[in-house]
């Protein structure tokens, strides 16, 4: 179970660029729940994922996962419990190293790195089997540098790497946003398969309303560092793309109203 308690984060505090990215976020995610997060640009959805992953320390609040308080854990220590796929296909793999070496790095996620030999026969044949299941023809190219692959292939491999050892939490940060539509569909299908098969607790940030409506069992909408909507269970199942777009339009109008009201007040009183 992931518990996020009153988590706040402000970037560049006390400067003109001050950004209150997370404002007292509370969120509890049950084991095996697949949560999709959507929101306007700068709403704090990626920041929330990075806060959980430990890319930075939060200003206040607490984060716990699988019974452990992660709040002060450095990023590499949290990786023992958390698997991640990034938006940028270049971020999740080491381009100059082979597919097999990348997978081997992932097969030891969170374990001490000693002088043992990473690429044993058993592991290599496991790699070949699992890579074959991707249906990308990569199983015979395990020795090729990963940098020679397409973005879609790299994201599929990163997903495989993040889930090679079953993580207590899977974080997907717009992991199909940089892909062409066909590759994006492939990676999404793979995501759905893996998450269902391993019953992974998952947080997925996306820009695609289609994905938000179709995937997961819970949908969270963020705006200006807060969670403004939380659809679960039957309510989540009923959600259609149009409903989401309508909700976004509401948010946008409210924002316009804020601004025009402020403008009016300024004209009257200042």
């Amino acid at each position, binding site marked *: 179970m992931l518990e996020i308690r009153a988590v706040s984060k402000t970037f560049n505090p006390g400067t003109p660029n001050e950004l209150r990215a997370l404002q007292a976020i509370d969120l509890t995610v049950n084991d095996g729940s697949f949560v999709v997060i959507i929101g306007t640009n700068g709403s704090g959805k990626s920041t929330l994922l990075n806060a959980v992953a430990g890319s930075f320390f939060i200003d206040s609040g607490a984060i716990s996962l699988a019974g452990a308080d992660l709040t002060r854990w450095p990023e590499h220590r949290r990786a023992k419990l958390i698997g*991640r796929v*990034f938006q940028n296909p270049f*971020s999740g*793999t080491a381009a100059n190293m082979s597919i097999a070496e990348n997978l081997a*790095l992932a097969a030891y996620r969170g374990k001490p*790195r000693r002088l043992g030999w990473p690429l044993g026969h058993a592991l290599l044949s496991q790699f070949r089997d699992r890579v074959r299941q991707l249906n990308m023809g990569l199983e015979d190219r395990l020795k090729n540098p990963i940098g020679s692959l397409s973005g879609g292939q790299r994201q599929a491999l990163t997903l495989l790497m993040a889930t090679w050892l079953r993580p207590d939490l899977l974080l997907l940060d717009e992991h199909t946003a940089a892909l062409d539509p066909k590759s994006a569909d492939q990676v999404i299908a793979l995501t759905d398969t893996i998450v269902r098969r391993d019953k992974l607790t998952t947080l997925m940030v996306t820009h695609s309303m289609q994905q938000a409506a179709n995937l997961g069992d819970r949908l969270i909408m963020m705006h200006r560092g807060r969670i403004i909507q939380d659809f679960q269970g039957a309510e989540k199942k009923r959600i259609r793309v149009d409903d989401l777009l309508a909700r976004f339009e509401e948010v946008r109008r409210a924002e316009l109203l804020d601004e025009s009201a402020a403008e009016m007040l300024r004209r009257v009183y200042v």
Partner: protein
Amino acid sequence: MSLLLGALTVGFIFSLVALGVLISFRIFAFPDITADGSSTLGAALAAMLLVHNVNPVLATSAAFVGGFLAGTLTGTLATKFKINGLLAGILVMTGLYSVNLHIMGRSNISVLGSSTLSTYAERVGTALTRNNTLNVMGWEITALEASLLMASFLFIVLAGCVMYVFFQTNLGTAMRATGDNNEMVRALGVNDENMIILGLGLSNGLIALAGAFITQYQGFADVQMGIGMVVWGLASVIIGEALVGTKQLGLTITGAVMGSVLFRLLVAIALRLGLNPNDLKLITAVFVFAALVTPGLLKRFKTLKPRSSHA
């Protein structure tokens, strides 16, 4: 002939510097210039211990440990204290100058009277040949020269193999991945800061080892001897990459050794032809500069050409 043998031997010894630079500059993409200080540190430690009749193997190992610690210091400054990598190297290198003077007690020490790895090698060489001179294709060479060359060659082969195997282990793979993509290795549970610290330690350990060997080869240590080591190593690595490419780890290691030997040979020939030794470092620096900018210039030249033909 003796000049050739000397150049080869020094080339092999200095290829340890090339291997060290390969680790810091290429594997970690970390511009570590601690080397100028750590090579002298290795020389100073070895010389001081040898003068006090410490076993040469022990003295040489101490040089490696000293260099290793210097490297971890640079790594710690750069990672834990977030100091710019170049500046961290400069700080440690500058500090080491005083440390080296303290170790040696004066600006240079002779080890000619002590038993060193060179005297070991000579004893083995003389025992094997039962003679003081050898006849190779009509040239008379001394057993000392031949045995020093063989010893340095064998050591470099050993060091290269150990390095090749090490960088394929779990630890070594994690280190290479750190240089490639540190965001990824953190996400896979590797403490990338510790990897950099350890990597720079190994790099400078090898470089200090070169200092210790060269001291025993030439018979003295000098506090100035480390100046230009980084550029030397970089030149060797660049020549090596031109010779064998950068695709495979094993090839890059071999290339760095070959680059070092070839560079030393070229230098020996140039000196023989009357090059002023004072110009050597300037020429090395210009060479590295040229090697760094030429690929970019060539690319720009190639992309410019078709455009101008359309105009």
